[in-house]
């Protein structure tokens, strides 16, 4: 191959290079689309007041327990936690139960990811938070919480009012 041919090939290669590199025109343009999803752990208890009344008893037996079959409450949870850092769920009373009284809180399993649990709050529990669920991750659900109330004859007659605080745990 002589010098002339080499020059021609060189010119041709340069022209092709200019075209391929867009030296003459950019026929494509790129655009970036970004999505940042924040860590989300939201929980909300239904605002309704659940009323439980123990007012019947059979002679010789403890009073019958009260179930809130008509006054169930809701607990809404949204978390985008990963399975490896699933959230727990605790319930905590604002004040201890009275002597002889028991408040049982039952949280059902989530349809998605999460298991409910049950805990009996008695006087000795005090105001310590207790686990009522675990393994919640990547869900957006509203659960129906069940409340039961028992009062033995040791419990003083009267109206008791408790506020229950639910907390998602395991949030870093």
């Amino acid at each position, binding site marked *: 191959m002589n010098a002339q041919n080499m020059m021609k090939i060189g010119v041709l290669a340069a022209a*092709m290079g200019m075209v391929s590199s867009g030296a003459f*025109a950019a026929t*494509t*343009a790129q655009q*970036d689309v970004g999505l*940042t999803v924040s860590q989300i752990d939201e929980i909300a208890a239904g605002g309704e007041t659940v009323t439980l009344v123990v007012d019947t008893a059979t002679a010789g037996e403890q009073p019958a327990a009260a179930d809130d079959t008509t006054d169930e409450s809701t607990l809404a949870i*949204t978390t985008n936690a990963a399975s490896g850092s699933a959230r727990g769920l605790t319930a905590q009373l604002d004040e201890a139960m009275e002597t002889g009284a028991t408040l049982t809180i039952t949280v059902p399993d989530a349809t998605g990811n999460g298991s409910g649990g049950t805990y009996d709050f008695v006087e000795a529990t005090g105001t310590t938070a207790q686990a009522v669920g675990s393994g919640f991750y990547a869900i*957006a659900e509203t659960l129906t919480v069940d409340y039961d109330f028992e009062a033995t004859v040791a419990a003083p007659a009267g109206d008791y009012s408790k506020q229950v605080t639910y907390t998602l745990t395991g949030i870093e």
Partner: protein
Amino acid sequence: MTLSADTAFRQDQVSWWRCFLAVALALLALVVGAADISESGGWSETINASDLIAGAGSDFHSPITSSAYQAALSISDTGGAAWTIGVRRTSSSLPTGVAVAVRRTTSGSGDGSVSGGESFLTVGGTEQILCSGTGDRSGIGLQLRLTGASVEHGSGSFSATLTYRVY
């Protein structure tokens, strides 16, 4: 013998020049006929608890839409000729089920015209026609949309690259 060899050499040279000119002309035609496209403005969206449909117990609202004039395309060096803009997704780390779509919201300005692309077009890996037009246009407005974001996808940063091509 010498004369014959010289003739063959000249014929070889002529053939080479013809080939060179043909390729050069073809390249020139490509260059002259190629419009130029440029894009300005990306889109980055952050979603948090305020983007839940109804607070705790609900998922993210969908779609998530950018402003009407989030980005713009400009077409130049058309020489008044007709052109078409294609778009495709060339890379993506978006979670499965999250789709990105784009639509044209303004016609921009310039001597030419623009048509089509006013409805959202879900952008996939295969190039699709976004809109077409004639002549030079600048500031063709684009709006972007994300659908399918869910708490099931977890938290983190995700991205996609859209590539626009004019031809």
